[in-house]
Every structure is written in structure tokens, then in C-alpha cells.
């Protein structure tokens, strides 16, 4: 279990979650910088993510889709607002249309990731903020299944099974 700390501010529609990772800052950065690693943790159980465009330079665009249990695809994107490898990443995130292009009709959120060296490990903080309740409601629709789907034990099994090949 990874120790985590969460601060939620419903009045200002923000949440900051901080995790104590047993890894160096450089290693933790790879969780974001390597799309093949991102794919292993970004999507909720049953909704694996595939990153089709991935470039963490300022102004760059990242595209991904998550494939649901019935094969349906949910497209999402990030725009890199600011980046300072390996310690800071500021992303605008939103939904894409069925072709994966950003959908201007849909709201966007802001996500600031900071990685800080901490007693040989890394503190990873993710601050999410939203313009409005509607934005938050729409952006969280995709993650709604998270709490209901397979238990963490099943994910561990999947990861353990594929570990020797990786």
C-alpha cells in the first residue's frame, strides 16, 4: 500500500492527492514520460488506456483513448501547459470526439503534477482543479466505473501474470 494524503476543497472545486512513492524522482517521472508505463496505470480496471500521441514538451498535445468492456472507445487528450522534467508537469485535460480530436463543446480541467525527493523516495502530488461543477461532473463521468469494477486484487493478478514477459 502506498501512503496517500488527500485535501479536497469543494468550495473551490479542487483536490490535491499526494502519494509517497518508493522510487527515485527520475523513476517516478517515467510513469508520466513513458506512454507504455502510463498505459499500465492511467485507465481504471476494465478501461485500459492507449496513448496514440505522447510528447511532454510545453505546448505539445497528448492523445489517448480508453477501451471499455464492450469495445467502445473514450477519447481524451492533454495539452502540456508547462513542464520542468523530472519534477513538474502542468496539463490541461479534456475529452476528444470519436476521432480523438479535442471536442470544443466539452469542458476541460487542469492538473498539476509535482515530484519531490523525499527521504530517498518521491512525493508525487497531483492537484486537480475545475472551473465549475458541470466541468467536474462531465470529466468524472468516464471514471465513474472505477469504484465498482474489479477489486485491486484482480489488477495485481493481471500485472503479476504479465510481469515475466516485460
Amino acid at each position: 500500500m502506498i501512503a496517500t494524503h488527500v485535501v479536497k476543497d469543494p468550495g473551490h472545486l479542487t483536490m490535491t492527492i499526494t502519494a509517497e512513492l518508493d522510487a527515485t524522482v527520475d523513476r517516478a517521472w517515467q510513469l508520466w514520460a513513458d506512454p507504455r508505463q502510463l498505459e499500465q496505470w492511467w485507465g481504471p480496471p476494465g478501461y485500459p488506456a492507449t496513448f496514440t500521441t505522447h510528447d511532454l514538451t510545453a505546448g505539445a498535445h497528448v492523445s489517448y483513448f480508453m477501451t471499455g468492456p464492450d469495445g467502445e472507445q473514450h477519447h481524451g487528450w492533454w495539452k502540456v501547459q508547462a513542464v520542468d522534467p523530472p519534477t513538474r508537469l502542468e496539463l490541461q485535460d479534456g475529452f476528444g470526439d470519436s476521432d480523438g480530436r479535442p471536442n470544443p463543446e466539452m469542458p476541460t480541467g487542469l492538473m498539476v503534477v509535482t515530484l519531490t525527493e523525499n527521504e530517498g523516495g518521491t512525493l508525487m502530488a497531483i492537484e486537480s482543479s475545475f472551473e465549475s461543477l458541470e466541468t467536474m461532473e462531465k470529466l468524472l463521468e468516464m471514471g465513474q466505473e472505477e469504484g465498482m469494477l474489479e477489486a485491486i486484487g484482480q489488477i495485481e493478478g493481471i500485472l503479476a501474470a504479465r510481469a515475466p514477459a516485460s
Partner: protein
Amino acid sequence: MVVGKLRDAQADRVFHALADSTRRDILVRALDGQHSVSALARNYSMSVTAVQKHVAVLERAGLVSKHRHGREQLVRGNADTMHRAVELLEKLEAAWRGRIDRIGDLLTIDRNEGRKP
């Protein structure tokens, strides 16, 4: 984990109301306790009339309500609407806890394979 949806017309008013930082600040104060409009206005460099207008926008959105107390009208936050924001943040927290658990699994695989974490 079902999150109640706001009805469309009401939803539009809620989002408009929350789009302004002064209104968000008024709302946070009104959720902590009831205040008269003139007491609220002392926190901002704007007229009581301007604050009154912000309160009216919040009231139409159902985020605050006014209650008569003697000669004063007191503004009180509507916890139900805010409760929805709390539920959504809880959902976000659950999503991130899941992601962090999966990151933990990835880092464990690193160690089992003898890679330096």
C-alpha cells in the same frame, strides 16, 4: 457510486454562478455560517449593491437562500448543492487512489525484476 445529476436549466444557473471567484468566495462564507449582505460586502472592494447582485445569482442557482432575521436578510449556503461537489471530489479521489495503487504495482514489479526503483 451514483452521482446525482443537476437538471439542465438549474445546472446552467449553478455553473454560471460558480464561474465567478467573488461568488465562489461568498458561497464558501455562506456555507460556514449565515451573514447579512452588508456583512458579506465588507470582505470585498465593491458596493453592497454589487454584492447583492452576486448573492442574487447564487440564490437563483439554488446555492444560497435568504432568511429573514429581524430587520435583516441573512444569506445561508445550500449544503445540498455543495454536497454534489463533495461527491464528485470523492469520485475523483477514488479514481486517483486506483491509479496510485496501480503505480505501486508497477514499482513492485521493478523491484522484483531487480531494476533499481
